C-alpha cells in the first residue's frame, strides 16, 4: 500500500458514491438500534430500490442526539430526521427530489452549533464495516505519511506540540508518555488501547469503537511507529459485543489492505493488534490492573513505579492510552500539532467527547472544545432539564468524580477547573440530576459501586469503601448522628490518601463533593430524619409501617 494506492481507493469510493444522487444515512448505534433502526434501514433500502431514484442507503455509527432517535440524515441536503420508523420509509423516499418530510424534520442547530467534531468527524458519515469508507475520508493517510515522511522523533514532537492529554480520565500529557516509552530500552514493546469503559454512564469509547474502529487502529499504529513497538492489544469490555465484532472486522480489513502486518507500506515497520476481552471488572480500567488482566490474571493493581512505560506487559515497556486518545492521533498528524493546540483552554487542548445523559432534554454524545462553559453544554447543547423540574447537579467522572451544583455552572470545562471543583473530567460521562435526586443516595450509589468493584488488594480501599458505604446507609435511613459526618470525612481522607490505585484514591470524590455542595441534605437526613428529595426511606417510617 502506498499513498497513491490509498488515494486511488478513495477516488474509487468517491466515484462509486457519485453514482448516487442521494445518500440516506441511518444511525445504527445502540440507542437507535434499540428502537428498530435495523428494520428501518431494511425498509429504506427496499423502498428506494423500487423508487427508481439513485439512492445509497448507508448504515452508520452514532450521529449524536440519541434522544431523537432513530435518526436518519439525508445528504447532500444534510436534512436530519428524528424518530423515524419503517412506516416512514415511503415518505422519505418520495421526498428525495422535493421538499423534506416536515413532520420528521428536527431542528438541532443549537445542539450542533457549539460542537466541534474531531474524534467524531466520521461518526454518522461512514459505514464502520467498510475500510474503504474510512479511507475515502482521509483514513490511514496519517499512518502512511508518518511511515514514509516522518521519523519517530518527528511524530513524538508533533504529539507533544499538540498538547493532547490522556482522555481516559487522568489527563497525563500524551506526548510525554509516548516519549518515555520511546526512550525505554528493550527490543520488545507493546501498545495497549484501553477500551474498558467501566464508568457507568459513559459510552463515548463504545461509540468510537463501533462507529469508527479504523480511527483507533490507525492511532495505535502511529503510536507503535513512534515508540518502536510491533505488537498491540485492544482491551474491550465483554459487555460491548458490537464493538468487539466491529473491531474484529476492522482488523481483518486492515490486514487485507496491508495496513497491519509485516512491512507495512513497503517499509521495515511491522505491527499487528489482538483483541482482549474484559470480563466485567471496573478496576481493569486502571492501567496496572488492565495489564494483569491481559496476562490472564485477576485484575489487581500494583504499586507504581515502575510505570508501565518502563515495565508493563510481561515486564516490557508498554504504552497504554484510552480509545479517545488514540482517536485523536490521526487528525493531529494530518492537520498538525498547532491546529490541535489552538483549540481548547490554556492547559486543556483540543476537544472532548461527553456522554450527556440523565435528566436532560437532549441526551447523546457531544464533542466540544475544552474550555467551553459547563452551562453551554447543559443548557444550550443539551437543552436543559425538561420542563417542570429544576437542575440540581451534574455528575462528571463517574465513580471517581463528583457532583457539580448549579452555582458553578459557569465554570469552564477543563482538567484543572473540574478538579478544583472536586470532580474530574474522567472518561467523559455527564449525568444531569434534577430535584428528584437525593445527593446522599447518589453518594451511596457510587460507594456501593466502588465497594463491590474494589479488587481487595489494599486495606484502605477494601475496608474503607465498605465502612463509608455503611455510614452512608445509616445517614440515608435516618439512623446516623452528627458525629458520623466527621467520621465520614475522616474516613474519606484516609481512603483517598492511602489507597494503592486510582480506584480507591478517587472513590471518596462523590461523597466529598456532595458533602461540600449539598451538606444541608446530609444534615436534613441526620437531624430531621427526612429526605428532601423523597428518595430515601427512613427507618422511622419503616417502623411506622410495621407497627
Amino acid at each position, binding site marked *: 500500500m502506498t499513498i497513491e494506492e490509498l488515494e486511488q481507493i478513495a477516488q474509487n469510493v468517491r466515484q462509486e458514491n457519485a453514482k448516487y444522487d442521494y445518500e440516506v444515512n441511518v444511525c445504527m448505534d445502540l440507542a437507535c438500534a*434499540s428502537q428498530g433502526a435495523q428494520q428501518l434501514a431494511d425498509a429504506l433500502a427496499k423502498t428506494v430500490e423500487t423508487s427508481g431514484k439513485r439512492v445509497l442507503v448507508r448504515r452508520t455509527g452514532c450521529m449524536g442526539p440519541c434522544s431523537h432517535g432513530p435518526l436518519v440524515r439525508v445528504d447532500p441536503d444534510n436534512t436530519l430526521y428524528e424518530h423515524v420508523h419503517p412506516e416512514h420509509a415511503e415518505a422519505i423516499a418520495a421526498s428525495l427530489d422535493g421538499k423534506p418530510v416536515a413532520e420528521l424534520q428536527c431542528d438541532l442547530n443549537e445542539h450542533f452549533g457549539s460542537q466541534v467534531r474531531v474524534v467524531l468527524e466520521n461518526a454518522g458519515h461512514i459505514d464502520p464495516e467498510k475500510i474503504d469508507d474510512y479511507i475515502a475520508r482521509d483514513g490511514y493517510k496519517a499512518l502512511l505519511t508518518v511511515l514514509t515522511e516522518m521519523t519517530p522523533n518527528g511524530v513524538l514532537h508533533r504529539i507533544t506540540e499538540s498538547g493532547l492529554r490522556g482522555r481516559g480520565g487522568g489527563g497525563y500529557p500524551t506526548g510525554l508518555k509516548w516519549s518515555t516509552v520511546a526512550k525505554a530500552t528493550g527490543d520488545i514493546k507493546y501498545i495497549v488501547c484501553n477500551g474498558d469503559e*467501566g464508568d457507568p454512564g459513559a459510552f463515548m469509547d463504545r461509540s468510537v469503537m463501533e462507529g469508527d474502529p479504523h480511527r483507533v487502529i490507525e492511532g495505535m499504529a502511529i503510536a507503535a511507529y513512534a515508540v518502536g513497538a510491533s505488537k498491540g492489544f485492544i482491551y474491550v469490555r*465483554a459487555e460491548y459485543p458490537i464493538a468487539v465484532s466491529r473491531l474484529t472486522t476492522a482488523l481483518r480489513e486492515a490486514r487485507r489492505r496491508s495496513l497491519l502486518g509485516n512491512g507495512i507500506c513497503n517499509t521495515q515497520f511491522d505491527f499487528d493488534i489482538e483483541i482482549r476481552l474484559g*470480563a466485567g471488572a471496573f478496576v481493569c480500567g486502571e492501567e496496572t490492573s488492565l495489564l494483569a488482566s491481559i496476562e490472564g490474571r485477576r485484575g489487581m493493581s500494583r504499586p507504581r513505579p515502575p510505570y508501565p512505560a518502563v515495565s508493563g506487559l510481561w515486564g516490557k515497556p508498554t504504552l497504554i492510552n484510552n480509545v479517545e486518545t488514540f482517536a485523536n492521533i490521526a487528525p493531529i498528524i494530518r492537520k498538525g500539532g498547532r491546529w490541535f493546540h489552538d483549540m481548547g483552554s490554556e492547559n486543556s487542548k483540543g476537544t472532548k467527547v461527553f456522554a450527556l445523559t440523565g435528566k436532560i432534554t437532549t441526551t447523546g454524545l457531544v464533542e466540544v472544545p475544552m474550555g467551553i462553559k459547563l452551562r453551554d453544554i447543559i443548557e444550550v447543547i443539551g437543552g436543559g432539564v425538561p420542563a417542570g423540574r429544576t437542575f440540581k447537579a451534574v455528575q462528571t467522572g463517574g465513580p471517581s468524580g463528583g457532583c457539580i451544583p448549579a452555582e458553578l455552572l459557569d465554570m469552564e470545562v477543563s482538567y484543572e477547573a473540574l478538579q478544583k471543583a472536586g470532580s474530574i473530567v474522567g472518561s467523559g460521562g455527564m449525568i444531569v440530576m434534577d430535584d428528584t435526586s437525593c445527593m446522599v443516595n447518589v453518594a451511596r450509589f457510587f460507594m456501593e459501586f466502588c465497594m463491590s468493584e474494589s479488587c481487595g488488594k489494599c486495606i484502605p480501599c477494601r475496608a474503607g469503601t465498605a465502612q463509608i458505604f455503611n455510614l452512608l446507609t445509616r445517614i440515608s435511613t435516618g439512623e446516623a448522628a452528627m458525629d458520623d459526618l466527621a467520621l465520614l470525612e475522616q474516613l474519606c481522607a484516609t481512603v483517598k490518601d492511602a489507597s494503592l490505585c486510582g480506584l480507591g484514591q478517587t472513590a471518596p470524590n462523590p461523597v466529598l463533593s456532595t458533602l461540600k455542595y449539598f451538606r444541608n441534605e446530609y444534615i436534613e437526613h441526620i437531624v430531621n430524619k427526612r429526605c428532601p428529595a423523597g428518595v430515601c426511606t427512613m427507618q422511622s417510617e419503616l417502623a411506622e409501617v410495621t407497627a
Partner: protein
Amino acid sequence: MATLPPPPLPSDDKRWKLVSGAMRKNGYARHALIETLHTVQSSFGYLDDDAIRFVAKSLRVPLSQAYGVVTFYHYFSLKPPGKHTLTVCAGTACYIKGAAKLIAAAESKLGVAQGQTTPDGEVSLMTARCVGACSRAPVMLADNQVSGEMTPEHLIEQLERWAV
C-alpha cells in the same frame, strides 16, 4: 522442558472442541486463560468445576489461579442461566432514571432476588453495571435485546410474554 499433551476432552460434547480450538489458537499460552473461559461460557452458558479443571490443566495454570480468575470477574457465572435472562442495567444514568423501580418490579414478579434464577429454571434476573445505552435510560436487556426508556409495566409485559 517437555510439554505435556493437553488432557482429554471432558466428554464427547462437541462444544469442548470449540474450547480446545480457542486454546490451540492461542498456542496453549497461559495468558489465554480469560479468553478460553469466555469461550467456555459462551458455549455452555456458565462455568462448572469440570470446565475450570479442564481449562486449568490444558493451559498448565494452577487450579487456584483459574478459580480465582473465574470468581474475580463479574462476567463469569458458576451457575447455569435460566431459559431466559432479564438484565436490568444499573449504571448511573439508569439509576438516576429509576432502575431501582424496574429491579423491584422484576423481583416481586419473579419472586427471586437479582442474581438468581426462578426455581423452575425459566428466568434469570441479572443486573448490569452499564451496557452503554445510557442515552435511553433506564435500559433493560431481554435475552440480550436492548430496550430503552423502560417502565415497570413494560418489564412485566416482557416477563408475561416469556411465561406463555
